[in-house]
């Protein structure tokens, strides 16, 4: 890197500290924000309360033995959950599982599988952003 480029990168990083440390979770939220806006021009931000409802509500449309996200993930997202085959699942709340939601491919893979399992359809960008927002607050 030329000295000039280095200096401007450094200046940029100093000017936008948030940008410089933007982690994968922020990148995911940014992505879900633009997708949610594209789907609905009236989009006005994610909601932790809606995220909690998505987590706890019993849904129809998916598999009868797993009507809720909380059927496998524990009632308290800070506690470990369990699959129907009895395998333990690490907590999904960020405060106790700081490595969660840091691999976007993994996050997308499990949204794809689990939303189909519970809702019988894919989750919308709004639902994904709400889930993430609630988990980051937990």
């Amino acid at each position, binding site marked *: 890197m030329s000295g000039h480029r280095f200096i401007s990168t450094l200046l940029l990083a100093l000017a936008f500290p948030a940008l410089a440390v933007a982690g994968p979770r922020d990148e995911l939220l940014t992505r879900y924000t633009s997708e949610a806006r594209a789907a609905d021009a009236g989009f006005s931000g994610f909601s932790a309360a809606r995220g909690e409802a998505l987590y706890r509500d019993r849904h129809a449309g998916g598999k009868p033995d797993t009507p809720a996200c909380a059927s496998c993930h524990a009632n308290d997202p800070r506690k470990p959950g369990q*699959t129907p*085959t*009895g*395998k333990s699942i690490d907590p999904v709340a960020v405060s106790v599982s700081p490595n969660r939601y840091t691999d976007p491919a993994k996050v997308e893979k499990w949204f794809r*599988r689990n939303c189909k*399992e519970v809702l019988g359809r894919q989750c919308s960008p709004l639902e994904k952003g709400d889930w993430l927002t609630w988990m980051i607050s937990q």
Partner: protein
Amino acid sequence: MNVPIRPLVSASLILAVSAFVLAGAVADGGHYFPPVADKTTAEECGSCHLAFPPSMLPAASWRKMMGQLDQHFGDDASVDAATADLITRYLTSNAGDSSGLRFSGKLLRDLRPGEAPLRITELPRWKREHRKIRAAEWADPEVKSKANCAACHEGATRGYFDDD
């Protein structure tokens, strides 16, 4: 000729030790099923249930299962093509009927050549080993499913299934 003695000695020592370990496993009746050693396979195939030891099914079973991961016992377990390739290679080359692996002979003994069962828990030999377990024990909330090997076999993740 200048033969390096040290490497030769350690090589024969290693051979002697592995022959001993092999003999031990076989004399034991083949109780040891080496656990999944590949990181990707352990992660992708061990999040919903125990990452089942590849030697518990023949290669044809793994090939068939890997070809229909989007309909995996009612679940969508699909992965991208490159990952699926890697896992298929690992599972088939460590399958129960792959050459050099005799540990699982007992579990697969009653299968006809070419048969590709998808469930370990449907193998005739597995059913016979578990015939004395009553319905109440299977229904125990700690067990939940026959595929929950680790509920009863404490050593399951280490490859041992002959404890209680």
